[in-house]
């Protein structure tokens, strides 16, 4: 192709890519055009002004790429968007859970201010009070304002709103998060907890793990080193959690995973995902049973116990 035509074509492509929002591709075409002009400068009368103009375009493209890369991955959305998240991303089959699931969905989408409002409303409901309170703490931490989490905890501590046992769980949760973040604030423990400090953990808790220190896990990633002759990581949403026991519903199509586990199998590489962080740890398969009735007939219900985080 004639060089001038080729340059024209490249600049045309760059313009269209830019208009399509394909800024990286636009930048590539501008750079190719500039190189071609430099190489054939002798034959192009206005090469200096052309190069100047292209350099300006390249700068603009780079600026646009930088802005995109620096754009925060989440920001507060309109009430309309938040309402869709709250109502359409709560998937629980249990109607009672829909409200708290909606609030959790808001938090997952980074809508922390609205999520906080929703969790505060749920605090009034006894069945979900502890879960809502824990998530309030997590929202403050996710917003990177641990001071607000501490202030909230201290408010609860000075009130009689949360029962001592639940307050103790919040205390442990927050103290643990602060420690992991390297914040040396020491929280006052509720009286009942302070009195029982040093007592052993409940019997059903895995050795070395305090039941109350376990975060709510939303999903797990389990790596089986020799699944189908290669290392594979299986990810599953948590169906429900009771302390250190996590229940997973596994489709019967997941043959390779189901073949790799049985009661007593130790899953050495387990990743636990909570709404605020991911932890590496170990878990133990405590039961595997086939579901014989209902909409999940044929699936497998697998209980795993967190051994270490």
């Amino acid at each position, binding site marked *: 192709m004639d060089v001038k035509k080729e340059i024209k*074509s490249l600049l*045309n*492509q760059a313009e*269209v*890519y830019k208009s*399509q*929002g*394909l800024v990286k*591709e636009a930048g*590539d075409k501008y750079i190719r055009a500039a190189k071609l002009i430099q190489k054939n400068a002798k034959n192009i009368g206005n090469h200096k002004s052309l190069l100047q103009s292209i350099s300006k375009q390249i700068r603009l493209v780079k600026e*646009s790429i930088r*802005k*995109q890369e620096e*754009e925060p*991955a*989440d*920001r507060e*959305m*309109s009430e*309309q*968007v938040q309402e*869709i*998240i709250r109502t*359409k*991303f709560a*998937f629980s089959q249990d109607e009672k859970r829909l409200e708290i699931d909606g609030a959790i*969905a808001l938090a*997952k*989408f980074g809508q922390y201010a609205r999520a906080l409002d929703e969790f505060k409303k749920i605090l009034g409901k006894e069945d979900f009070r502890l879960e809502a309170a824990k998530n309030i703490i997590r929202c403050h931490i996710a917003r990177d304002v641990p001071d607000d989490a501490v202030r909230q905890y201290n408010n609860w501590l000075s009130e009689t709103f949360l029962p001592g046992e639940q307050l103790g769980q919040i205390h442990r949760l927050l103290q643990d998060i602060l420690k992991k973040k390297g914040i040396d604030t020491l929280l006052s423990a509720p009286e009942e907890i302070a009195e029982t400090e040093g007592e052993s953990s409940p019997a059903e808790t895995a050795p070395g793990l305090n039941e109350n220190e376990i975060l709510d896990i939303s999903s797990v990633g389990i790596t089986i080193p020799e699944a189908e002759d290669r290392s594979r990581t299986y*990810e*599953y949403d948590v169906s429900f959690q009771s302390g250190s026991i996590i229940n997973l519903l*596994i*489709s019967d*199509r*997941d043959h390779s995973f189901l073949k790799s586990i049985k009661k007593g199998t130790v899953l050495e590489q387990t990743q636990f995902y909570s709404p605020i962080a991911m932890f590496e740890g170990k878990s133990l398969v405590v039961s595997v049973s086939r579901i014989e009735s209902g*909409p999940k007939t044929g699936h497998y219900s697998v209980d795993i116990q967190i051994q270490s985080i």
Partner: protein
Amino acid sequence: MANINLKAREIEVKIVYYGPGRCGKTTNLEQIFKAFRKQVTGQMVSADTEGDRTLYFDFLPMGLGKIKGYEVRVQLYTVPGQVKYASTRKMVLREVDGLVFVADSLEVRREKNMLSLKDLHMNLKDYGLTIFKVPLILQYNKRDLGEQGLPVMPVSLMERDLNRQLKVPSFPASAIKGEGVAPTLKACLKLTLQSLKKQLGW
């Protein structure tokens, strides 16, 4: 499976438009919003960035009338295409009933198409679904850009890249002009409703 409300006799079907960044997913929904006035039951809601890229999703509710006495409501979503929004894409995909994969016909986006389809495959797998069984339609968008002198892949090459194993219905389109948008949606709804009927034993 679709959300079925026995009391209200309603079926809620979720269709997700998937594909690489800037392939035209949002444009598809905008065209549907214009062209399917009778079926659209609410506003199109977009959660986008300042740079006009989809941040979380676009949402468009539609109504398809009654099937076996059940009101069928369809919710169309798009996912954010940019690589960095992987977790949001996965969240939007949850409980999906039908999919439209929008591929970009521009040659420079060939690899992005393939990576995005692979990403879809992996995300579906994580939800216990297989890309080979979920109702899926491919759309080869931006066919019009060839007229502007841009290198566009022939449909045969896109079929080879993306549909060789899947063998699902595919449609060329120019969403910006509204071309190919309706056939894509109709084909996806048809497949999705067929799959739903099968699941419900109707």
